[in-house]
């Protein structure tokens, strides 16, 4: 279902990006990169509102003919991006939300690890395992 999952750091470089290898990974990298613009737009759009009021889940960022891109931002401006195959129409919004929640949880687990320096690429095996267990993932 989800063909690509990416965790982007606050400074907009990827901490973790993983995609279904069948299709060109580079394409997904591009897609995620361009989706960052949309994310920025959405989070800056709130303006002066407090972070609490801003919804973490950003929803559909933009659709293309092949797939849809969903975004999620944490309070520390770490962004999660999920690219989903468009042909998969049964994927509901709440499922995406739950995917993001799990992603967020596993990311928090990585953060909790004192040996992890925030800003390093995520190399945790546990994190990778969690990704594979996302609903219908990989």
């Amino acid at each position: 279902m989800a063909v690509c999952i990416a965790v982007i750091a606050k400074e907009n470089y990827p901490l973790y990006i993983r995609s279904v290898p069948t299709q060109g990974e580079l394409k997904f990298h591009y897609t995620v990169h361009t989706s960052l613009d949309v994310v920025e737009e959405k989070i800056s759009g709130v303006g002066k509102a407090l972070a609490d009021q801003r919804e973490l889940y950003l929803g559909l960022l933009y659709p293309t003919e092949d797939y849809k891109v969903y975004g999620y931002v944490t309070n520390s401006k770490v962004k999660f991006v999920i690219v989903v195959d468009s042909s998969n129409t049964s994927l509901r919004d709440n499922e995406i939300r739950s995917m993001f929640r799990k992603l967020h949880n596993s990311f928090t687990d990585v953060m909790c690890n004192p040996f992890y320096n925030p800003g390093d690429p995520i190399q945790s095996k546990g994190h990778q395992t969690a990704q594979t267990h996302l609903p219908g993932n990989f």
Partner: protein
Amino acid sequence: MDQGSAAGTGGTLISLSDSEQRCYSGLYALCQPDSSGKLAAGKVAELFRASQLPAETLHQVTEVCGAKRLGYFGCGQFYGALKLMAAAQAGLPVRLESIAGELPLPVFVGITNELEMRYPNQPLTNESQSHILGSVTGSAPRPPADRPVLRHPDTSMDKQEVWSPPQSPGISPPRSPSAYRSYPYGAQRNGTDTLLVYEAKVPGLPSVPQENSSPSHYSLRLQPEQPVITRVASVERLVERVEVDYSDDPWRITEEQREYYTIQFRSLQPDLSALIMGTVAKNFFTKSKLPILELSHIWELSDVDKDGALTFPEFCTAFHLIVARKNGYPLPETLPATLRPGFVEAAVVTAPPSEKIGSVDLQMTSRQGVTTKQEARDESRKPAEFSPKRIPEPHEKPTQHVSTLKPDSPQELDANMKSRTRPRSYSSTSIDDAMKKVEEPPTPPPRPQKTHSRASSLDLNKLFQQSGQGSRRSQHSLSAKSGWLPPPPALPPRPPATQIFSFIPGSEKSSQKVVQQPNFADFSKFREEQETSVRGGLSTEDLTPPKLDSTVVHQGHAPQKPVRRKIHPESQSATPPSATPYSAATLTKSTQRPPPKQKREIQMAIRKNRETNAVLTRLNSELQQQLKVVHRERVTLESQLELLRPVAST
């Protein structure tokens, strides 16, 4: 298995003698070559480590023999490497030229038994190995004769080599305690940088962590390696412990190991039921010199409740994994059943006798090659830790540290907190910070003699009082935490160490404080002697209480580690002169509490209550946050339900 007599190394052919051939082929087989002739990297690494050559030498060997270039050890590279190691052990530089000639066979500590099993007739096994076989139980006399011949006295390996034969007991499956007792030095598998670093830093110390079992299925003699560290006495001490040997499962923690872990845990956190913060644990485990990635993986495996801190079982697990990793065991992907905290819980050890702590602590620090800084930290931490019972969750509120509660009460809180989902907000970041915070709020937990000045609803207080009163009566030390002294009968509550430290700097300033100083000096003496009577001296000074109060407040923020250390000698020097009058004056556990004391108690109580209020507020806010999260989830679920409902109704 290629039995070729020539090993091609970087294009040059090297001839092997018969004995070498046999030995090398044995070793080659030992290293589990796969179908293409490549050797298992792990086995090769173990073998290299067993050669007891310094890491740089091993790297050179790898380079010269061509394995580095190729990226793996093929037969040729392996044989070349073995030859080079033999050369290195004989003292020759690691070069191709040096292996052209006839060399003695390389010596591998701990691997030889395997060879024995495969090639019983190998000449290499020579005298030493036959001795090894003969002395499976590790009898004392080891034939060092051949070893020194074979071994090149490396600077840091000197002492080990003399005793290298003792490696054999490590080899034998029955890791009999006598094996360890019989020799103070152990040949150690320390090919890795990590342990080498330890060695290098303690060159003068004779005994070396003992040899660990060779690859496969020997159960992990981990604790010999770590800790025993470098004192003969400690080795023997550890040896004398009962050895529970379940099986050859390397993932099972033996009793000795557990005791050692307990000691280590205490050095970081005196309360066995409390948590070690992530950063504290990080600093500690980083000393093991494992790569960060592996440490990170180990952490993930061992921190099962994912709270960013380690409980005692988690700590044991993590430590065990680290030791296993250093011994060459690959890290598992998931936690082995025997290491799960549930399993470990059952075997939590009560504190080992405290006298071990001192020596082992020192050993630990020396083993770790930590500089005096660590030792100083330990020492300074220890006195300070005795009384300020570290609250299990310092993240709750720094001020809570001060209320040096008995372990019981914090445990209750701790249990509650832990059962919740993932408390992640650990604000304190290090032992230092924690210790500072301990000293900040100077208010000592009230230990009223007769008056229960607090009608607080918290169990903490009650327990505290009970414990305070109870311990006042009895002088027994509560295992290692005995630093928690029975409260002074006369003067209210002072967490012994912190207050001492906080007072003493101030006490220098005025004559009055000079008066106080001896009290605290007495107190430190008390700590050593475990007398409660000393405190009584304070009661005689009526003017002290109010003054002390202010000094307490004043000095609250002063104490730092260096200050503490300074204070020690001061207090101790002040002890002798003034000890006698005070102790003579008030040997009675003074039940006489003059009224001003009561007032003071009340003040203490007020402060205490404020602190607990703060704690509770903090707790409250955290719970509120959790409530919010749960709310959100609930909303999500409800919306999902609604989405489903129309479907169901149709």
